[in-house]
C-alpha cells in the first residue's frame, strides 16, 4: 500500500494550499488578545495640557483606532467612523500615529472628528507597544481594559457589522 503514499501526501498538501489561498501570509495576529491593553499617557491633539490614558476608559467598552493624517486608507475610513460616531454609543479613541508634520488638528477641524479623544503618538512608541505595523489598525478594549479584538486595515460597513458589532454586543457595550 505504500505506493499510494506519495499521492496521499500530495493531496494533504493540496488541501493546505487551497486553504492558504484564503489567508494573508503577511497579516500579523495580535498577541494582545485577552491581555491588558498596554498603558500610556499622551497629550491630546489640540490641547497639549490634557493627557489621555487607557485607564480613563475603565468601566466602558471602547474602540482604539490607530490612524495618521498622511495615511490614505484612513481618509477612506474617516467617513465610516464619522457615521459610526453618530449612530452608536461606543467611544472611538483615535491614536494619532507618527504625525511628524502636525497635520492632525487641522485635518480634524476641517473634516470633523469622530473621536472621543485624540492622543498624540508622535514618536510611534505607543504604537510599537501595541504591536502596530501600519495604519489603520483598530482594537476593541473591554470594560476591564483587556484587548478583545484587533482589525488590520480600514473599517467599512461590512467589517463593522460582521466583526465589530457582534463582539461589542458580547462585551456588553
Amino acid at each position, binding site marked *: 500500500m505504500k505506493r*499510494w503514499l*506519495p*499521492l496521499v501526501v500530495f493531496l494533504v498538501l493540496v488541501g493546505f494550499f487551497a*486553504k*492558504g489561498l484564503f489567508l494573508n*501570509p503577511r497579516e500579523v495576529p495580535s498577541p494582545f488578545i485577552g491581555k491588558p491593553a498596554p498603558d500610556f499617557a499622551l497629550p491630546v491633539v489640540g490641547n497639549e495640557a490634557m493627557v489621555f490614558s487607557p485607564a480613563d476608559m475603565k468601566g466602558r467598552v471602547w474602540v482604539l483606532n490607530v490612524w495618521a493624517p498622511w495615511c490614505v486608507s484612513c481618509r477612506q475610513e474617516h467617513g465610516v467612523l464619522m457615521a459610526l460616531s453618530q449612530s452608536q454609543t461606543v467611544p472611538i479613541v483615535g491614536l494619532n500615529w507618527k504625525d511628524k508634520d502636525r497635520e492632525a488638528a487641522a485635518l480634524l477641524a476641517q473634516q470633523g472628528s469622530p473621536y472621543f479623544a485624540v492622543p498624540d503618538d508622535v514618536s510611534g512608541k505607543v504604537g510599537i507597544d501595541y504591536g502596530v505595523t501600519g495604519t489603520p489598525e483598530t482594537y476593541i478594549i473591554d470594560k476591564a481594559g483587556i484587548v478583545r479584538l484587533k482589525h488590520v486595515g480600514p473599517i467599512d460597513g461590512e467589517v463593522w457589522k460582521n466583526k465589530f458589532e457582534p463582539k461589542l454586543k458580547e462585551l456588553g457595550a
Partner: protein
Amino acid sequence: MIPELGHFALIVALLLAVTQSVLPLIGAQRGKASLMAVARPAAQGQFVFVALAYACLVYAFLTNDFSVENVARNSFSQLPEVYRITATWGSHEGSMLMWVLILSLWTTAVSVFSRHLPDDMVARVLGIMGLISVGFLAFLLVTSNPFDRLVPAAPDGRDMNPLLQDWGMIIHPPMLYMGYVGFAVAFAFAIAALLSGKLDAAWARWSRPWTTVAWAFLTAGIVLGAWWAYRELGWGGWWFWDPTENASFMPWLAGTALIHSLAVTEKRGAFKAWTVLLALIAFSLSLLGTFLVRSGVLSSVHAFATDPSRGAFILGFLAVVIGGSLVLYAWRAPKMVTGGAFTWFSREAMLLANNVVLLAAMGSVLLGTLYPLFMDAMGMGKISVGPPYFNAVFVPVMAPVLFLMGVGPLARWKEASLPDMASRLKWAFAVAVVTGFLLPLTLEGFNPWATLGFFLAIWIVLTGLLGFRDRMKNGTRLTSLPRAFWGMQLAHLGLAWGIAGITLVANYEQERDVRMNVGDHTSLAGYTFTFQGTTEYDGPNYRAARGTIEVSQGGKKIATLHPEKRIYNASGMPMTEADIHPNFFRDVYVALGEPLDDEAKSWAVRVFHKPYINWLWLGAVVMVIGGFLAASDRRYRINVRKATAPAGAVAQGS
C-alpha cells in the same frame, strides 16, 4: 497590431499543443502509427508559434508600446534597451510566457534528438509535454494574457524594479527556467514508461542525458541568482532561504537524487520504480515552485504580484498533473520488477543512501518553507521560519551525503567490502580530519563549523583524486577516460570547491560600518579604504551620487571603487549599487549607506572583506561543466549514430 498577432499566435500554439498531446497519446495506446507521427510536427509547430508570440512581446517592449498593459507596468521610455528585453520576463505574465517558450524549446529538442527511440515512446513523451503546454497556455490565455491592452494607453511606463536592472536579470531567469522546466522531459519519460509498462535500462539511458542537462542548467540558474543577490543587494549576503529561492532549490535536490538514481537504473536495472517516482517528484517540485511564487500563499521578496484566482487555477492544474501522475504511479509501479541483489557497501547501497539524504534535505527545506502555512491554515498562529532554522538544520542533514561523495564513486557495483574500502580511504580520511581541525586554529581559533566544511571539501577532493588514480592504474591516459567519468569528477570537485569557499567566507568574512568625510580612511583585513567624496551624475533612467573610494594594501593602491546611490526617475525608488574588487582569494566590497549631512559631503559607508567568495562561483561553474560533459558521453551519442547507420552494421557498444 503586433500584440494582437502575438495573442493570436498563442491561440494557435494552444491548438497545436492540444493536437500534439491528444492524437499521439491515443496513437501510442492503440498502436496507430499515423496518429503517433503527428507528435513531432505538432511540437515543432507549437514552438514556432510560441516563439512568434514571444517575439511580438519583445517588439512591444522595444518600441515602448505603452498601450500594452504589461509594457506600461514593467517598462519605461528611459529604460536601457537591454533591460526592456529582460522586462519581457520580469512580470508574472511575461515570465509565464517564457515558461511556455522554454517548455516548447525542450519539446522541440526532444523531437529532434529522438530518432533512435521507439515511436510509441516518442509519441508518449511529446504527448505528455504537450499536455503540460496545454495547461500553461490555457492559464496564460485565460488569466494572464501578456498582450492585454491598456485603454487609454499610458503616457509612459512605471519602470522596471531597479533591483532587476542588472546583469543578473539578463541571465538568471532564462538559465533557471531551462533547468526546472527541463525536468519536464524526465517527467514525460517517466509517465511514458508507466503508460507503456516498459521500464528497462534502455529507458534510463535515454532519460539520463536530458535530466543531467536540465540539472546543469538549474545549477547555473540557482548560482547565478545567488551571485546576483550578492552583487546587487548591497548587504553582502547571497542566500536568504526565501520561499522562492527554496522553490528552485528543492527541485535541484530532487534532481540531484534523480541523476544518481538513474545511474543505478541504467547500470544495474535496479531502483526502477523509485527512479520513476523521483522523476515525478522533481518536476512536481518545479510546478510547486511555480505555484508558490505566484499564488500569494507565501510571503517572498521574489513573489510576483498576483491574486488568489490565478493561484486557484495553478493549484487546480497542479492537482491534475501531479495527482494524475501519482495515481498512475500507484497503479502501474508494482508491475515494475526490479533488478538484482547488492550488498551493504556496494555502489548501489551508497547511491541509495545518497538518495535518502538528499530527499531528507529536500523534505527539510519543504517543511521549513511550508510550516508557517500549515500553522496558519490550522489556526495555530503565525510564525516565521527563516535563515536561522534552515542553516541550523540543512548543514547537519546534508553532511552525510557530502561524506558519501568520497565513498560512493570508489565502491564497486553489487558488492564491496567495508574493510577493503576503509583501508583504501584511511589516508585521505586522516589528512582531511587533521587539516580540517588545524586550519581554523591557524586562522581565528577553534571553529567546529569551519572544521566540518574544510574536512568535507578536502575529503571530496582527495577521494576524487583517488578515483582518477584507480582508473589510470592500467596506464589509461587522462584524456581517454570516458566523459561520464570526467563529468562526475568535475561535478564533485566543483562542489567541493564551492563548499570550501562557503566555509571560508561564512566563517571569516569581516565588515565595518563607518562614517566618512572626504579624506577619511578606515582599515579592514589589511586593506585601507580612503573616501574621496561623491559626484553627481545622470544615468539613463536615474540620478546617482557616485562615490570614489581608493583601496590600498601595504601603502600600494590596488583599486578605485565607485559605489553608487541611485534614485530612479520613474518610481522614485532609491537603490544602493555596491562596487567590488574581486580576485581569486577575496572580494573587497564597498557600499554607500545614507548621506549624513545635507550637502552629501559625509556618508555612511560599509566595507566588507569576503575571503574566497569567488570559489563559490568558480566551483559552481566547474559543476555545470561537469554536468554538460557527463551528458555528452559517447554512449548517448552512439545510439544516435547507430540509428542513422544502415541496418546490419555492427553495433559499436560502449
